[in-house]
């Protein structure tokens, strides 16, 4: 592995931090990921499911291309990547120097537990007398002052919570291995040179205890949404058998109160926290799943903000199929009900009528809390461009948004630092001439290293008996026993064995070496035993040693046999390195495409920008608001003048072949075919205002789309006319089938228009009919402002929309105002309809690029949350309106995010072959193509001449679906070939 030249600091190891760390690491830089708390993962390990699909999928953040250098495990249990160093319990205490060349000082607090001595027996946790409310369970459970903060990671250390530890010494006494040191030590290290810093501090959640809202902190059955999720979780305080905290009663009736700590100017929180609505819907569904489908779940809300592409359907399903109740109201109070533990909710519903209901539990949908100020240390440097923050200015974000911002932050950081995009720092494996590779080429000879950790008190092992059995096993096996005593004796003896061994595979058998693993791995690597040549058996593992004093040779041999079998079958990987071209194709030159193109070009990538129209800019130039249009105008100028960008207007993609890293195709322009080759493609085909016939649109001239209305309002002549009444109707033709999604942008536009009209005509009547006002995040303030400007908001239900009719020449809108309890008839000068956005037709293009399309005609991203700008094809990315409705500034941000994802691929000169990937043995393949149909990644295709099945080695993720559908093992999986697996099974059943 080559030494990385530039390194970055990422502060905070939540979703955003992990995401940007992986992005940087995969782009070729080394990263120090600094986390103040005891573990990585942020809020994720606390949540089992996330909207809008009720699944986790965090692991999908791991690299798809060149997957193997990092650990391939669930990200909730931790992260491991050769380019990322993770420091928990650590803070940045100083940063000096200049962008591109900072010196950082990091201060770490000791955990109080010696990693080498601790056998993870957890005796310490059992004896700790301190019990504190567990932050991991958001106070819905307890833990001790010494605890295991990582989730399901058997190698993770217990850690002392210094704030709560009383130094009573019980744990130190209980530890059989004297691994505990009760003195809190701070260690300082300085890291230099640091090129840049990403601050991913996350957003604190609002703490309802501060304002004592709705009885939180007083009534034990009023909990936060996070706490409720923990209550439901299998890893939570009730271990998957949830009961009511106060009395252990079953939970039958649950209420959610929305906007707790948000949209409330009285407590200084005017913003909308954007995520809580969907979070609540998800949690209600989860509750039904865990507690039974007959559980009464009710969400009390002001507006249900299901903005975005999939959210509306998700909510509809929850309501219509699962029976989650939604009540639009204002909550008055939560009080104890007659039955002890029960809670009484009183509210005013949308008709202004008081209501009351009783629940077992009340869940507070707490939004974003008070944002921590950036420490001056960092705040000073944000102007320099090399200290970038993720998100805080935008408030709380859902996963998708956080991931997008992380991509964007990395992209802008790299762009600003003007890094050489081909920093050749990607770890390379599998080079010929490499000792490890040579070893692979030989018949397996196995060197067993028995590592006896004599110092610690772990179950005793009868080594001679085990060694005897090993030596008698068939195959070439050599055994050496070494003892580890606090790591000291490891060095010399090990060196000799590794140097002199005839073995070419290593089997490490030990009774507790968790703490040594990293060091050993490095030593082995240096001696030419790369990770795939080594198998580890730690007999101190749960399944072998559970509850025993001594480990019987029989029990010990089971895992050893399995590991032996795996080693005997290890073979060199069969693929070849794939060349990567440092160029990209960007399809569509609207705001998203332009931004992607410029961002890539700035980082040295050659960009072919293909646009169907004759001019570039997409919807950009049509943006009426100058302030919003300016950045796009700038992008147009930059793209036109950039030496790395060649622009093809009036052109479309004609044909395509190849694989991620190297595509070939041509664009068709005025009957000319221009051949192109490129390493990655970005789809940014954009969208257009939807055409709708709703409300008689197109029949009466005063009925216009909100886009056209905006144009009119901005026209100076508009002010010259008289104007009495403007009616706006939101969600025209959208948020119901067949176009059942929210276009995100219309509510804000309506508010903008309304405020502009108000300015021009202080006495005009302005009425907005709406279903839910989707002013997520900061735009909530616009909504608040509009309400103070005598703009009348009338909510309606999708089953009872307002009616537009004509009376002679005038257009009249009939509706019902539930707040005033009266019918309204409005003679309108203008009726502005929020028509929403639809994507441009992209089916043909997507077929060429082998990328699926959603039923609404958007590009289907690889994963809505975790890979928002990726597609299932690792060489194709997507951004902007092509993928879902968004604002122009959001499209620009997505463009940079997509550019970064492409850069992760393009900055490599080549891609190493992967061990876990599929290979076809053509000679015995029957060409039934079942594998081609079953590959979830479209990684297989049929070569047209002989009909052979070919695997795209970059797209293949090694899932093995193809191998299991192939009846005669004509498709085989790198390390998991049938004979290997069957022999392993046989060994396991010994």
């Amino acid at each position, binding site marked *: 592995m080559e030494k990385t030249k530039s390194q970055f600091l990422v502060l905070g190891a939540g979703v955003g931090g992990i995401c940007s760390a992986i992005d940087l690491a995969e782009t070729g830089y080394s990263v120090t990921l600094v986390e103040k708390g005891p573990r990585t993962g942020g809020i994720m390990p606390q949540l089992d499911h996330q909207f809008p699909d009720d699944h986790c999928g965090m692991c999908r953040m791991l690299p798809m291309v060149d997957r193997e250098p990092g650990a391939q495990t669930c990200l909730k249990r931790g992260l491991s990547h050769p380019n990322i160093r993770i420091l928990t319990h650590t803070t940045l205490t100083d940063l000096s120097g200049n962008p591109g060349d900072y010196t950082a000082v990091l201060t770490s607090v000791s955990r109080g537990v010696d990693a080498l001595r601790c056998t993870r027996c957890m005796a310490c946790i059992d004896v700790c007398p301190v019990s504190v409310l567990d932050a991991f369970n958001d106070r819905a459970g307890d833990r001790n002052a010494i605890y295991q903060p990582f989730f399901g990671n058997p190698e993770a250390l217990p850690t002392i919570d210094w704030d709560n530890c009383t130094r009573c010494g019980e744990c130190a006494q209980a530890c059989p291995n004297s691994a505990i040191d009760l003195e809190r030590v701070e260690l300082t290290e300085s890291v230099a040179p640091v090129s840049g810093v990403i601050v991913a501090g996350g957003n604190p959640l609002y703490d309802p205890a501060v304002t004592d809202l709705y009885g939180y902190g007083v009534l034990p059955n009023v909990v936060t949404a996070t706490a409720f999720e923990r209550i439901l979780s299998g890893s939570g305080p009730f271990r998957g058998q949830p009961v009511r905290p106060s009395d252990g009663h079953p939970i039958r009736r649950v209420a959610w109160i929305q906007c707790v700590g948000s949209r409330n100017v009285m407590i200084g929180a005017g913003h909308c926290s954007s995520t809580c609505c969907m979070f609540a819907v998800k949690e209600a569904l989860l509750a039904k799943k865990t507690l039974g489908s007959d559980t009464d779940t009710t969400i009390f809300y002001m507006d249900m903000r299901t903005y975005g592409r999939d959210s509306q359907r998700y909510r509809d399903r929850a309501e219509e199929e699962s029976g989650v109740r939604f009540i639009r109201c204002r909550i008055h109070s939560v009080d104890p009900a007659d039955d002890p533990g029960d809670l009484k909710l009183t509210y005013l519903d949308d008709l202004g009528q008081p209501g009351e209901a009783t629940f077992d539990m009340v869940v507070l949908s707490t939004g974003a809390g008070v944002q921590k100020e950036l420490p001056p240390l960092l705040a000073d440097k944000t102007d320099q461009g090399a200290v970038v923050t993720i998100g805080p200015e935008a408030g709380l974000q859902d996963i998708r948004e956080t991931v997008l911002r992380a991509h964007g932050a990395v992209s802008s950081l790299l762009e600003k630092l003007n890094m050489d995009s081909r920093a050749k720092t990607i770890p390379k494996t599998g080079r010929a001439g490499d000792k490890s590779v040579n070893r692979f080429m030989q018949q397996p000879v196995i060197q067993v290293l028995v590592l006896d950790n004599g110092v610690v008190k772990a179950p005793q092992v009868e080594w001679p008996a085990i060694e005897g059995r090993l030596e008698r096993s068939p195959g070439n096996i050599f055994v050496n026993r070494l003892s580890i005593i606090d790591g000291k004796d490891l060095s010399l003896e090990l060196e000799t064995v590794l140097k002199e061994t005839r073995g070419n595979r290593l089997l490490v058998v030990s009774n507790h070496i968790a703490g040594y693993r990293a060091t050993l791995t490095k030593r082995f690597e240096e001696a030419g035993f790369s990770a795939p040549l080594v198998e580890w058996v730690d007999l101190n593992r749960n399944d072998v040693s559970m509850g025993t004093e001594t480990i019987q040779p029989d029990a010990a041999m089971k895992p050893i046999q399995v590991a032996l079998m795996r080693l005997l079958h290890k073979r060199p990987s069969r693929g070849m390195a794939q060349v990567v071209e440092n160029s990209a194709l960007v399809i569509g030159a609207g705001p998203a495409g332009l931004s992607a193109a410029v961002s890539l070009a700035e980082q040295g990538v050659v960009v072919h920008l293909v646009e169907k129209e004759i001019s570039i800019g997409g919807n950009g130039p049509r943006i009426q608001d100058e302030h919003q249009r300016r950045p796009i105008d700038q992008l147009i100028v930059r793209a036109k003048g950039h030496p790395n960008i060649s622009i093809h207007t009036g052109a479309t993609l004609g044909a395509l072949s190849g694989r991620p890293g190297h595509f070939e195709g041509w664009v068709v322009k005025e009957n000319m075919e221009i051949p192109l080759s490129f390493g990655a493609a970005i789809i940014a085909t954009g969208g257009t205002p939807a055409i709708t016939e709703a409300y008689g649109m197109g029949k009466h001239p005063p009925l216009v789309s909100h886009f056209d209305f905006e144009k009119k309002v901005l026209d100076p002549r508009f002010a010259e006319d008289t104007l009495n009444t403007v009616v706006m109707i939101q969600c025209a033709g959208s948020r119901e089938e067949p176009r059942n999604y929210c276009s995100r942008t219309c509510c804000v536009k309506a508010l903008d228009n309304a405020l502009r009209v108000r300015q021009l005509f202080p006495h005009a009547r302005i009425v907005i009919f709406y279903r839910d006002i989707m002013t997520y995040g900061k735009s909530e303030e616009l909504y608040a402002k509009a309400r103070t400007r005598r703009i009348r908001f009338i909510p309606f239900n999708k089953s009872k929309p307002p009616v537009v009719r004509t009376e002679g020449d005038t257009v009249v809108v009939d509706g019902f105002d539930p707040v005033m309890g009266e019918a309204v008839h409005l003679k309108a000068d203008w009726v502005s309809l929020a028509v929403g956005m639809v994507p441009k037709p992209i089916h043909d293009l997507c077929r060429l690029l082998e990328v699926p399309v959603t039923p609404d005609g958007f590009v289907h991203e690889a994963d809505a949350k975790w890979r928002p700008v990726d597609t299932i094809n690792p060489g194709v990315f997507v951004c902007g309106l092509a993928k879902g409705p968004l604002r122009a500034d959001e499209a620009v941000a997505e463009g940079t995010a997509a550019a970064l994802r492409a850069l992760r691929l393009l900055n490599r000169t080549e891609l190493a072959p992967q061990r876990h990937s599929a290979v076809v043995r053509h000679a015995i393949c029957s060409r039934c193509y079942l594998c081609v149909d079953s590959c979830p990644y479209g990684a297989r295709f049929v070569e047209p001449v002989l009909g052979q099945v070919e695997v795209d080695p970059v797209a293949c993720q090694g*899932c093995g679906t193809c191998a299991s559908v192939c009846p005669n093992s004509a498709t085989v999986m790198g390390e998991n070939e049938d004979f290997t697996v069957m022999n392993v099974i046989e060994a396991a059943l010994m």
Partner: protein
Amino acid sequence: MATREPKIIALVCNWCTYTAADLAGTSRLIYPANVRMVRFMCTGMIDVKYIIKAFLEGADGVFVGGCHPGDCHYINGNVKAERRISGLQVLLEQFGIDPKRFTLKWIGASEGPEFQRNMQEFTRTIAELGPQIESDMMIL
């Protein structure tokens, strides 16, 4: 035949169920020691041969554990596995292999207790059913 400890093999996916197993381990939720675990990247790669092999090698029960539908790291390997495995269950039943000896369960990464519960129940079921195949039959 002398009664012996039931032999149980658990074929689990790397992403979810394996994590759940480790979570059970770190939460010190004890599950029976006769469960032998073999890890696969995904249940979608579990070939019918593996299961047949396990039974013929003397497994008294075969447990397959993967991610919940939708959570599969590889999109839908688990549902495809379910389809294949359900047919195999029917098939093996014709040979006197009780379908109870062979189950497929979805266990998510955070469901350590669920993993433990499943292992305990499965082991109990298998113990009740008794051994599946005599050792001299494994020669053939």
